[in-house]
């Protein structure tokens, strides 16, 4: 059976779960972070495994994930655009289900980012574009490459390092009550600046935590969702967008703004038929403190140069009018390497009313991902109302 549109609430997330544990998991291989989360998400959906006919993942192949779980899918997707792959995979799953190419899609993530158990080598070829034109200069890790455009961004807006630290302070407040979060100590701007320097202007707490963790989603049509035990917890896809830019960070079209955020968010809002005023909650992929600033401005929640004041004034904190990264985000909660899955998981929890720190009256959430260090973006508008 096919539905009319992949957007507008015709497709639902009916199962969602992270791995039972996150953090330091030296006894679990990368692939079994996928399978642990997958089994939990299937149980959460209350759907029989035999109904799953689509598998989508980023990292290992969909072949491996499907085979590990004893699934023989008729549709697979291995789109790999870094940490926002999972936004794109939800979007692609919705398109496939709408088109009749799949009925029930399992989307999985898992990374042994901290313990490196069962992880294929991450080495990049010395002949690749990054291997020739960035790695030789030290841009071998996110902290030394993703951070390169930031001084230009800050200068263009008259922002300071203190403004970066404010992002960390705001998000930490969400993490403090959350026992699954990695960084839970209260901190102020001075405290953030006093953590060890990593790559100027970034100190440690402006950079994400590094963890072992996984997550999975079960996606199907709203029609099928109605008859599942999880029917009253379904989260609907109202709109989405995605896009890519340069394969190396030095070639961003503009150091001060990111096209895939602007274009992906615009498409997500247009396809959802909602405006910024309709959004009750946001998840902004925060591998580093500058990303929520770029995203707030590029996705149109504030104007150019207004993001720093927005954080400082507390709009994104508990009790604020735009609650952001409400489990603590990558900066404080968890970050396995490709964080996008965890941003979606928290949006789903908030929309179901199941979050550790629950925001009252959340109906619609906007999720913005980034991938490959300003290489890609993915945007989702999710709601607990079918639209």
């Amino acid at each position, binding site marked *: 059976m096919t539905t009319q549109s992949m957007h507008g609430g015709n497709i639902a997330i009916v199962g969602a779960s992270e791995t039972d544990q996150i953090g330091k998991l030296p006894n679990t291989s990368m692939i079994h972070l996928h399978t642990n989360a997958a089994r939990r998400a299937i149980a959460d959906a209350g759907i029989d495994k035999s109904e799953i006919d689509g598998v989508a993942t980023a990292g290992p192949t969909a072949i491996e994930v499907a085979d590990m779980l004893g699934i023989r899918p008729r549709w697979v997707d291995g789109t790999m655009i870094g940490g926002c792959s999972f936004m794109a995979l939800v979007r692609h799953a919705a398109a496939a289900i709408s088109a009749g190419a799949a009925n029930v899609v399992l989307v999985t993530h898992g990374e042994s980012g901290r313990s490196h158990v069962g992880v294929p080598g991450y080495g990049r*070829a*010395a*002949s690749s*574009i990054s*291997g*020739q*034109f*960035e*790695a*030789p*200069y*030290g*841009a*071998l*890790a996110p*902290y*030394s*490459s993703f*951070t*390169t*455009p*930031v*001084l*230009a*961004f800050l*200068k263009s807006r008259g922002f300071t390092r203190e403004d970066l630290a404010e992002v960390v302070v705001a998000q930490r407040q969400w993490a403090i009550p959350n026992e699954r979060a990695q960084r839970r100590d209260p901190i102020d701007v001075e405290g953030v600046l006093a953590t*060890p*320097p*990593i*790559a*100027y*202007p*970034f100190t440690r707490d402006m950079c994400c935590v590094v963890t072992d963790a996984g997550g999975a989603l079960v996606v199907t049509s709203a029609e099928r969702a109605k008859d599942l035990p999880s029917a009253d917890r379904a989260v609907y896809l109202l709109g989405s967008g995605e896009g890519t830019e340069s394969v*190396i*960070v*030095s*070639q961003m079209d503009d*150091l001060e703004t990111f096209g895939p955020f602007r274009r992906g968010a615009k498409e997500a809002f247009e396809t959802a038929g909602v405006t910024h005023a309709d959004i009750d909650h946001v998840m902004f992929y925060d591998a580093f403190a500058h990303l929520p600033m770029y995203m707030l401005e590029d996705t149109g929640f504030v104007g150019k140069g207004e993001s720093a004041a927005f954080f400082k004034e507390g709009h994104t904190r508990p009790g604020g009018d735009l609650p952001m990264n409400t489990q603590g985000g990558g900066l404080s909660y968890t970050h396995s390497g490709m964080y996008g899955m965890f941003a979606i998981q928290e949006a789903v929890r908030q929309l179901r009313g199941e979050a550790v720190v629950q925001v009252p009256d959340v109906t619609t959430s906007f999720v913005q991902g980034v991938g490959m260090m300003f290489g890609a973006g993915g945007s989702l508008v999710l709601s607990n109302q079918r639209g």
Partner: protein
Amino acid sequence: MSEGPVPEPTPETLPFWEGTAAGELRIQRCNACEKFYFYPRPYCPTCLSEDVEWRPVSGRGSLASYNINYRPFPAFKTDQPQVIALVQLDEGVRLMSNIVGVEPTPENLPLGLRLKVGFEPRGDQFLPVFTPETTEAE
């Protein structure tokens, strides 16, 4: 000789690395668009024309952005901070490089700082790196 990852040229990028070995920074230019572009490709990324050529450029530019990396990877065999910089060449393209020959502090590295290229041996290749223009003038 600096330690660290050694770039491995491909047929399409070889002229760039032949240039650095000869002490020249060579960047491709599209004759149709009359614009330089980077990174190397055998066609113009704007108009897809194959009417492109390698040209030596001035090697001068300005500091567009950077970080000071206090945690160099083990491959670099150093614990000295690295300035990982985005350099805007006067010809209009931007590339990543290191700023060398200057104490790596924010005070020494204001955005817009004028820079000039030099070439540093790395394995069997030569890396373009940049120094502040003023250090030579002094």
